[in-house]
């Protein structure tokens, strides 16, 4: 799956072994945006032994926060199920909001290998 970035949604690439998301996230319809992504991710996670995720977001609104929380839950559950899950939360060094957001999500990550990456 590949979604081009729009002014309100990030670029999304989902392959058999990796997911990348880059840009801003404040969709007109968060459900229409997020449901296919979560579905595709779950589908890709099922048969794999390891999966890597990279997120580089500049901004996301409060409705998207719930989506990301659910998104990370799916990944953590996969890790708890024995899969090797690596997550990179990438943020610019000047971006305190995104750094904090990455730390917020980190708290619920236990089995998944979650890393904050300053760029």
């Amino acid at each position, binding site marked *: 799956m590949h979604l081009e970035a729009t*002014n*309100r949604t990030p670029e999304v690439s989902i392959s058999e072994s990796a997911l990348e998301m880059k840009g801003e996230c*404040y969709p*007109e*319809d*968060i459900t229409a945006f997020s449901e296919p992504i979560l579905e595709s991710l779950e589908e890709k996670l099922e048969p794999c032994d390891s999966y890597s995720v990279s997120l580089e977001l*500049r*901004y996301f*609104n*409060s*409705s998207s*926060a*719930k989506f990301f*929380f659910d998104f990370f839950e799916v990944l953590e559950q996969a890790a708890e199920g024995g899969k090797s899950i690596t997550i990179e939360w990438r943020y*610019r060094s*000047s*971006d*305190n*909001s995104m750094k*904090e957001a990455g730390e*917020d999500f980190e*708290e*619920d990550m236990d089995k998944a290998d979650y890393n904050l990456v300053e760029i």
Partner: protein
Amino acid sequence: MDSHDFHKLLLSRGTFFCYSGLLSEEVLSAISGIVREQVTDIDHDEDLTTRVFGIFIEQAQNIIRYSDERLAQGGIGTVAIGHTSDGFVVEAINPMKSDNMLSLKENLDKLQQMQPKDLRKAYKQRLREGPPEGSKGAGLGFIEIARKSSKFEFDFVESPELLFVLKAWIDP
């Protein structure tokens, strides 16, 4: 009020962007890019301008979802952004049902008292618990506004219909 007084009024309070009328997601899509540009033109501090923009989006979406005066596509209200020597201010005004006033006041009073670390805790708790009943989003909008602003104020004004006023300041 004459048109030129209206113009001068906006300028005198430092308002550089104002939208009044039907706010829908479509309208927001059309104006958010311009708002971003204008805010960034005034101040190059990316962290600051992202906070301003974030608060603008949350306030606009509150109007879209919850304004008591509605059309199919969204809600009626006003959202305005200003800049003075004290920094940025984002304000929103929309009609609301008087039934909701007490619980909203209680919620916002609580948020106003919270320190940053308590706001962060409240945010994470709400994320885990999920949105409250009747919420059209994640139920995080006001917490987000409280977190990102330097301070915020709110008021309920009978004019004669009940108007909800929310004002958030963002300074460096």
